[in-house]
């Protein structure tokens, strides 16, 4: 197996119910190393729940999730180790408001990985430079704009050296003029070879950056394919209806 084909994330018949409500109804897919996957679909179709099942923020009702070949369901005790491989960026940023930007980035590597403080801070500064926020290291999250907050959140996730990054509508809470700066960081990340699953309504990003697009509807992957296939020649009626609304 070449490195390119290494499966980073695999889900098999993944189901999730909230009480009576069946939110995921059997999601089976694979994500290879370096792939960028966009997940699109109407609100309430289960996109967030799917991402959250991957790192067990939600516990799947049935089915399997594998992270780099290791069954998450069978290794719940090691979940903290597994989560370190999977970074997550949230719609609402969820920065730690009581910590300076630099400490937001450095806290987990220091506490969780028990790495040397000085090395962690040096790396945190590099990451802040990478997302264009060197000058904000000593600021508190409340002093940042939305776009800056989300870039810090990306740096914070990257600080744990994840193999995969999950993005759940990273630009949906942003003012329009700030969407670009976050997408630029994500594009650069994709270019650098990061494996990414991105739930987004930014169709431009999905079309331009992703290797594969999943269209989710009512808890299933209703259609998947390359951006060209999905955007130019959708097969599924629902995909067409959805794209008709958002494009």
């Amino acid at each position, binding site marked *: 197996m070449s490195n390119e084909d290494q499966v980073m994330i695999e889900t098999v018949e993944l189901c999730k119910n909230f009480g009576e409500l069946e939110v995921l109804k059997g999601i089976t897919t694979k994500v290879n190393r370096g792939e960028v996957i966009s997940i699109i679909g109407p609100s309430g179709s289960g996109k967030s729940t799917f991402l959250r099942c991957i790192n067990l923020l939600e516990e799947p009702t049935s089915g399997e999730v594998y992270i780099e070949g290791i069954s998450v369901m069978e290794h719940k005790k090691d979940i*903290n180790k597994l*989560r370190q491989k999977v970074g997550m960026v949230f719609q609402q940023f969820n920065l730690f408001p009581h910590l300076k930007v630099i400490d937001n980035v450095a806290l987990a590597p220091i506490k969780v990985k028990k790495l040397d403080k000085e090395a962690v801070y040096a790396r945190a500064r590099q990451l802040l430079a990478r997302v264009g926020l060197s000058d904000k290291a000593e600021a508190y999250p409340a002093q940042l704009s939305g776009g800056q907050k989300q870039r810090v959140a990306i740096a914070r996730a990257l600080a744990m050296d994840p193999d995969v990054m999950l993005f759940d509508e990273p630009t949906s809470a942003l003012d329009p003029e700030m969407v670009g700066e976050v997408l630029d960081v994500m594009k650069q990340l994709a270019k650098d070879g990061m494996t990414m699953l991105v739930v987004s309504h930014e169709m431009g990003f999905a079309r331009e950056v992703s290797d594969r697009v999943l269209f989710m509807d009512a808890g299933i992957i209703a259609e998947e394919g390359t951006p060209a296939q999905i955007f130019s020649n959708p097969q599924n009626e629902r995909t067409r209806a959805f794209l008709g609304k958002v494009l």
Partner: protein
Amino acid sequence: MDGLYNAIYKNFIRDDRYMYILNGLKITIIIALAAAVLGMVIGVVMALGKTSKNKIFKALASTYVELIRGTPTVVQLLIIYYIIFGSTAVPKLMVAIVAFGINSGGYVAEIVRAGIQAVDKGQMEAARSLGMPYGMAMRHIIMAQAFRNILPALTNEFITLLKETSVSGFIALDDLTKGADIIRSMTFDPYTPLLTAAAIYLVLTNLISFIFGKIERRMRISEQ
């Protein structure tokens, strides 16, 4: 003027009666401080219980809080003195500290629980997604933020606790209130000793407000 001097002389100076106030104040402060620390520890543990997924831990913590909040402090103090420590040689001061600590813990638990639950759910998720275990996330992310938010409520609780210690006389501890009352019973002057005790409590409660207000302002500034 002569009247005032006479009152002071009679109540405080003669036979070194001021020592009732001074020793009482010492007892009051020791009980309040130690009980506050004990109450914080118990309160945090119980708040973790009330917000825990563990059903047994949760039920225990809830029962504790209900028992404390649903019964009078004096009754708790008497039960702990006569029933729980009844046949032991534990000093009364220790009993009082334990009793008021247990009492304060019940109220602190509710304050801390509210503080924990007021922290956005996304904070715990972000922390867990970085690989932090529950306890670590609770401490460095949730509690750290909750503490800032509950400082005013905790200030109130410490003030209440200080005032509640005035029932220590029920187990024959000579705290500030009891000391003042002893002087009253010797001099038959209710005004001077009791108003003096009230003034001292007022100074102490204001001191607590002042100190916590300072801490609170410092925390706010560091986030601006």
